[in-house]
């Protein structure tokens, strides 16, 4: 087991290297000149040349890549062309807001999606199954950004129930001091006992939460259902039933344990989709997370920022898959 984890980690490192390589080269295909961007819109040719030297763009590619790798390992993702601040710092600032959304979607995937899939598989071809399948397929066919807009239209414009966007009401942002311990608004406000902020943040979380949570639920429910259907047709399930084991046990213990592999894979996949969906959701709800950060970066063609976010997301995804693979390896068959 330990050997497996080690081997997988090694593979992960190689993959991360490949990711860095690809991102580096994609960035080099850039049509515009980063040095000019860095120097600013009114830079003189000398300033641009100086910027080029500063950014190390005159060195051969291999050296640039080497420096890039070294920087990566030490957590340096370069400097934003726009703000001249370290990308890593800006990332860390925007991260918690995004993590909130990702957490919501993960919870939804695991605690709503999986049970839905299980029940759907058990009640195959009955009403519950048809409804849940329609729901699943419907939900993954919805563009996330559109759902956000429609929710805003209905619940903000027409019904006035929920705010249009942002993490907090402007009123609160102006009048109150926002606690900033962990960076997680919900946590911080709870810790400091600031109830009003907590409720306000919660209220703002509803619409983005629904927007981000729908897709994972649909995806996970659908995949869990098919994984479970396959398992339920296996001989050992028939055998278990023949021994008179209660159906409840057969389903939630015998069958489910066998589905840990495909289920964790699909949960990891859904989180992967969520990563990009957060970008879209943040854009719609003006949510101050990484997505908004990259949106501004894309518009301003701020390449280090774009690259930084890409690498960061890719790395997180690789680690996520690593965890999923380790969970799969818990299957006793894989261990030997």
């Amino acid at each position, binding site marked *: 087991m330990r050997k497996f984890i080690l081997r997988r980690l090694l593979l992960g490192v190689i993959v991360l290297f490949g990711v860095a390589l690809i991102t580096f080269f994609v960035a080099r295909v850039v049509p515009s000149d980063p040095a000019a961007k860095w120097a600013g819109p009114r830079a003189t040719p000398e300033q641009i040349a100086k910027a080029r030297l500063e950014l190390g763009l005159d060195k051969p590619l291999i050296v640039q890549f080497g420096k890039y790798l070294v920087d990566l390992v030490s957590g340096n993702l370069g400097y934003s062309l726009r703000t001249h601040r370290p990308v890593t710092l800006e990332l860390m600032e925007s991260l918690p807001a995004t993590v909130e959304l990702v957490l919501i979607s993960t919870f939804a995937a695991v605690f709503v999606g999986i049970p839905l899939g299980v029940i759907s598989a058990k009640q195959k071809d009955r009403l519950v199954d048809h409804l849940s399948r329609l729901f699943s397929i419907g939900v993954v066919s919805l*563009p996330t950004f*559109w759902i956000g807009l429609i929710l805003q239209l209905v619940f903000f414009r027409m019904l006035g129930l929920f705010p249009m966007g942002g993490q907090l009401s402007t009123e609160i942002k102006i009048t109150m001091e926002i606690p900033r311990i962990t960076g997680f608004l919900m946590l911080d406000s709870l810790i400091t006992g600031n109830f009003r902020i907590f409720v306000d943040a919660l209220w703002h979380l509803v619409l983005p939460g629904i927007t981000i949570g729908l897709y994972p639920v649909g995806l996970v429910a659908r995949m869990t259902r098919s994984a479970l259907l396959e398992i339920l047709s296996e001989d050992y399930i028939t055998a278990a039933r023949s021994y008179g084991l209660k159906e409840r046990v057969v389903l939630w213990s015998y069958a489910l344990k066998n589905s840990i592999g495909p289920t964790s894979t699909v949960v990891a996949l859904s989180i992967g989709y969520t990563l990009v969906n957060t970008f879209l959701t943040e854009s719609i709800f003006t949510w101050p997370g990484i997505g908004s950060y990259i949106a501004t970066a*894309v518009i301003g063609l701020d390449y280090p920022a774009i690259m930084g976010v890409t690498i960061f997301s890719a790395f997180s995804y690789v680690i996520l898959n690593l965890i999923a693979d380790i969970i799969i390896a818990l299957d006793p068959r894989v261990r030997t």
Partner: protein
Amino acid sequence: MKWLSDYYKTLQPSIREFRLSFYLLNRNALQRISLIVIGLLVLIAIFAPWIAPFPSHAISETNPQDKLLPPSSRYWFGTDELGRDLLSRVIFGTRISLQTALIAVGLALLIGVPLGAIAGGLGGAADEIIMRITDVFLSFPPLLLAIAIAAFLGPSLQNAMLAIAISWWPWYTRIIRGQAVSIRERQFVRAALAIGTPMPRIIFHHILPNTMAPVIVQASMDIGGVILTVAALSFLGLGAQPPTPEWGLLISTSRTYFLNAWWYSTFPGIAIFLTVLVFNLIGDGIREVLDPRTRKF
């Protein structure tokens, strides 16, 4: 040219199987409806200039005096900020979405399938290298690579298609490779090797046709996802550019106005939803039919 007709003959069993599955698809009412709707969409896409009431609105003409009108008998879907008929633009959007999806998937197949066949067919070093590259590409969260590539190549619909193709091909390579590996062990391949058939012929004549089925299934299921991706890219400004009436772009532009012009966001979104839905339903149906365990008979 004979090799082309020979090749067609070796594909026959797969084609027959495909035809059978196609027929079986029609058994479920929901599937039948989806199939019909897809047919309708294709027709709309092809005949867009004749179906749309104001075809020129979809291309370049603007009509500022009729801007932001709600749906009426003249403008069924209302108008946008430049007075253009939304219905016509959405209709032309069908054409764009379907075209883009087909090209993107086609490109991805063009890259991914041969790579997978080579990896699976040759094995050894070629296999390792190709699969490691595939792994790296697959380590990116879905869509992220497409966004990054599109961002760096420059925003345009063509670049979006390219970006999607580049981020999608590894899936197909993986599927083909898995199939190829198991086919490689089969008797008829070994027989071909034994009589000295050159490797490329073995790969492309013997192995490839037998591996196509799951990939065709996957590709047809992917069309829905690709349409969504193109829309998402355009929404972010990385795909279609104005004045192209691409659905995602329409929704993105609508953001400025939609609170007071609900039709602007709603109709393109419904178009995306319905299109992706029917493709997903068909994909699901195809999958159910081909998997013997979920067959009802």
